[in-house]
């Protein structure tokens, strides 16, 4: 457990101890969503629409209910009416109303005494549809004559004359765009497209719900945020949040896709109808792909002006994004501010529209909006660098955001590490490896805001001087370890003496999910503040024992010490001694911290990738891959590297193979992992990482958050590398072999 670097002066932060939940997870003991069972439990299955758009004329559940062992069926008629806004969207997505809006839209659910029986019963539910015209492509959905998916979705922001499927419009910018473009030596403009991809967590959504006729219930569920589950289920079912207790299981990946509800209200509604028997509901993989959160698909126009020396004089984007058949799900509000976040450009204009289409309700996916925006903007920057013969890192160093720069979306950056990531990438040996035939190198930078959010943490000192920390952000990738390290560092006790638990909704105030790269930042910050309170109390106890003023006591190395010679001469009183007698010195010692965490530090990264493209097949092989990213401070460097590597590989999948393929019938053509192909081990090289540390002044230990930025640069970096290898610039993802082959042929003329 050697420190990676000693520069910080920390004892524990920056070390790589084993995670506390590691043993359970390598032995199969850890309990995930589908691993819970209760006595008397029923199993449920969901009936889903095979049509992209249809009116529901009738649902006949009689045959299903007649089957022995079937205990309950729910349809939309069982849910309360009168909801509005996002609550109504959630309810509409949980169970369709009078119309189904995408292939896979839930129509009914059934609970029975076994999972096989529930599936049989689901097949017996007869739904009569009147098929309506559909549209799934983002550009087609706003073209004249496109079928109107829902009336009246446009809000006040949408300019006159746009198609009724356009739901929102956004615009902002600064500077004189025309003057900026006029000052450029070259102005280039292109359209870029990205397909929808799925978060692809290996664990399908799963829950066990129980609700009595009094409307009180319990739920065990794999989720990134159990308070969100509680609030959303309560809204959809018309119950009070306090009457639902939600306990998170271990979670088998989320990446944003498990921050919302899909099946959870169904398990509760079925349980209530089945006399309060608990109901387990587990999605199949096809259900996950057809009906849960893919990301948006995007079509993006970018225009840039550049001088011969690489100075970017002006930039303009117009993004079109669809996030399914529900308003508010496309990430235009994130994509636009991310578009030029890595740059300091005097004149910028940003515009975007959100379009609805007959696709599933999109959910957040790792840095929502940022990868698409980066694909568009970073690709064009790269194209112009190649045209002018400029080094892509030098151009980014020249135009890149710096400490104190005004960000492209308004606020001033405080202390940021973009330049440091660029310098580290430039200095890395990967940037100097000579390239062979059919090989190319791509570089791109990426950005994510990071997030604070509602956070509540409590900490209790044990009788033996250990500490238990209760947090509300589920641990998806080692955050128990990172939070344990920070608390142990602060208290001055061994890492092994701190136990961090993820607790249920009744145990803490409201916590936002583990999203926005916030768990180690916000729960960590709150845990340190909770520890600070406990330390203050321990100092008071010591002071009382010594008969001195509490201000004359200081805490170091896990013990209270008299502060300086004037405080008196007392031997240090350790946390163990204080804990052992706390019952007689005033009672239990604990600390709490509740906050909407501020002080978020923006995250930047730069990736360098080398690929080889087979000119015969168009297949791209990633030869080497480098992630450089500013962590602020890497609390547990191994899990920081893991986030960098995992994010990069998801981005590689998005760039090279992953896409939602819809047929002319509006049905998803590839709802299994065989056809929705995420990267496998044999597709990849090792993923090299460099952790840059420019501490965030807004966190006691300098943490920024590391989860999301890593998925952003791979899309443009790989497209740039393929362009380098083939001479063909492809402006739509994925770079599948047939597409690359066709582009190579077209480039050769």
């Amino acid at each position, binding site marked *: 457990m050697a420190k990676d670097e000693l520069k910080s002066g920390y004892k524990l932060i920056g070390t790589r101890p084993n995670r506390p939940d590691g043993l359970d997870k390598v032995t199969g003991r850890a309990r995930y969503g589908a691993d819970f069972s209760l006595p008397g439990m029923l199993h449920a299955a969901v009936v889903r629409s095979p049509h992209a758009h249809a009116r529901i004329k009738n649902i006949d559940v009689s045959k299903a209910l007649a089957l022995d062992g079937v205990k309950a069926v729910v349809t939309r008629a069982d849910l309360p009416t009168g909801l509005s806004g996002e609550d109504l969207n959630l309810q509409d997505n949980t169970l369709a109303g009078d119309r189904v809006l995408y292939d896979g839209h839930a129509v009914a659910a059934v609970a029975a005494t076994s999972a096989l029986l529930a599936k049989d019963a689901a097949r017996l539910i007869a739904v009569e549809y009147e098929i309506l015209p559909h549209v799934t492509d983002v550009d087609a959905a706003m073209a004249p004559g496109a079928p109107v998916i829902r009336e009246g979705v446009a809000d006040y922001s949408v300019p006159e004359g746009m198609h009724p499927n356009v739901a929102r419009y956004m615009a902002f910018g600064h500077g004189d765009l025309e003057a900026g473009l006029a000052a450029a030596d070259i102005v280039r403009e292109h359209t870029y497209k990205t397909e929808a991809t799925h978060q692809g967590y290996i664990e399908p959504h799963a829950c066990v719900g129980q609700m009595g006729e009094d409307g009180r219930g319990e739920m065990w569920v794999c989720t990134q945020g159990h308070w969100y589950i509680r609030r959303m289920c309560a809204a959809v079912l018309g119950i009070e949040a306090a009457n639902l207790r939600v306990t998170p299981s271990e979670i088998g990946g989320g990446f944003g896709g498990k921050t919302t509800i899909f099946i959870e209200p169904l398990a509760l509604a079925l349980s209530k109808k089945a006399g309060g028997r608990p109901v387990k509901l587990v999605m199949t*993989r096809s259900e996950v792909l057809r009906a849960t959160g893919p990301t948006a698909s995007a079509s993006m126009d970018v225009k840039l002006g550049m001088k011969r020396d690489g100075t970017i004089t002006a930039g303009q984007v117009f993004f079109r994004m669809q996030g399914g058949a529900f308003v508010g799900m496309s990430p235009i509000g994130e994509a636009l501010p991310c578009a030029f976040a890595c740059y300091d450009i005097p004149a910028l204009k940003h515009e975007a529209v959100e379009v609805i289409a007959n696709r599933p309700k999109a959910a957040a996916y790792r840095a929502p909006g940022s990868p698409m925006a980066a694909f568009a903007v970073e690709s064009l920057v790269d194209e112009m660098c190649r045209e002018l013969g400029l080094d892509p890192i030098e151009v980014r160093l020249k135009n890149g955001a710096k400490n104190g720069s005004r960000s492209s979306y308004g606020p001033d950056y405080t202390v940021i590490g973009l330049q440091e990531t660029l310098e580290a990438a430039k200095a890395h040996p990967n940037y100097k490896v000579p390239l062979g035939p059919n090989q190319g190198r791509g570089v791109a930078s990426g950005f994510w805001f990071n997030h604070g959010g509602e956070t509540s943490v409590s900490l209790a000192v044990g009788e033996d001087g250990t500490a238990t920390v209760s947090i509300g952000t589920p641990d998806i990738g080692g955050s128990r370890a990172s939070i344990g390290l920070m608390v142990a560092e602060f208290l001055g006790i061994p890492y092994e003496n701190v136990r961090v638990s993820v607790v249920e909704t009744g145990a803490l105030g409201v916590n936002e999910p583990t999203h926005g790269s916030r768990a180690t930042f916000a729960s960590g910050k709150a845990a340190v503040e909770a520890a600070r309170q406990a330390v203050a109390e321990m100092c008071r106890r010591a002071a009382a024992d010594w008969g001195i003023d509490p201000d004359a006591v200081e805490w170091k190395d896990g013990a209270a010490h008299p502060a300086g010679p004037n405080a008196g001469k007392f031997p240090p009183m350790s946390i163990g001694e204080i804990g052992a007698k706390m019952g007689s010195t005033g009672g239990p010692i604990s600390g709490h911290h509740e906050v909407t965490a501020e002080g978020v530090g923006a995250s930047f990264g730069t990736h360098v990738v080398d690929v080889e493209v087979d000119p015969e097949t168009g297949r791209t092989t990633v030869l080497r891959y480098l992630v450089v990213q500013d962590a602020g401070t890497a609390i547990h460097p191994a899990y920081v590297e893991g986030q960098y590597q995992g994010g990069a590989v998801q981005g590689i999948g998005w760039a090279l193979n992953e896409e939602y393929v819809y047929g002319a019938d509006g049905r998803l053509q590839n709802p299994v992992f065989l056809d929705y192909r995420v990267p496998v*081990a044999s597709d990849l090289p090792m993923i090299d990482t460099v952790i840059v540390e420019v501490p965030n002044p807004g966190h006691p230990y300098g943490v920024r958050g590391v989860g999301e930025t890593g998925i952003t640069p791979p899309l443009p970096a790989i497209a740039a590398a393929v362009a380098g290898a083939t001479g063909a610039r492809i402006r739509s993802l994925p770079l599948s072999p047939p597409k690359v082959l066709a582009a190579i042929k077209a480039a050769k003329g």
Partner: protein
Amino acid sequence: MTKIHVTTTVNGDPAEFLADPRETLLDALRDQLGLTGTKEGCGTGDCGACSVIVDGVLVCSCLMLAAEAEGKTVETIEGMAGEELHPLQRQFIEHAALQCGFCTPGILVAAKALLERNPDPTDTEIRYWLAGNLCRCTGYDKIIRAVQDAAAEMRGAA
């Protein structure tokens, strides 16, 4: 539907259960025997989360019927550690080769099967052997390193 009486050996212990003719080995392990360490990621043989060893052969338990386990010997993640962890399990923890950990049982079982046939695999051999085990979190880098180090340890080279 008439159930089938299945007698088998799981992790060295005799096990008996009544299987629905359509029930997979994966479901029987999880629901009948309470061995929930084996995971379902897809149910179609594409993700490897359900990997177990049946009579010495690595299989996707989601693709095998429970009734086919009659008279066979099944090894799951729950049987991998003795009094001490298997070197693969320990190396996975030490290398941070798991993030969410959902793919981990399947990958450990598959990697153990690899090292039993090939105690000194190259990186490429490990990557191709594990190509049927999806991990969405790690990018595989730390998994490959953990398997390499476990192999070295088991060869006595570490």
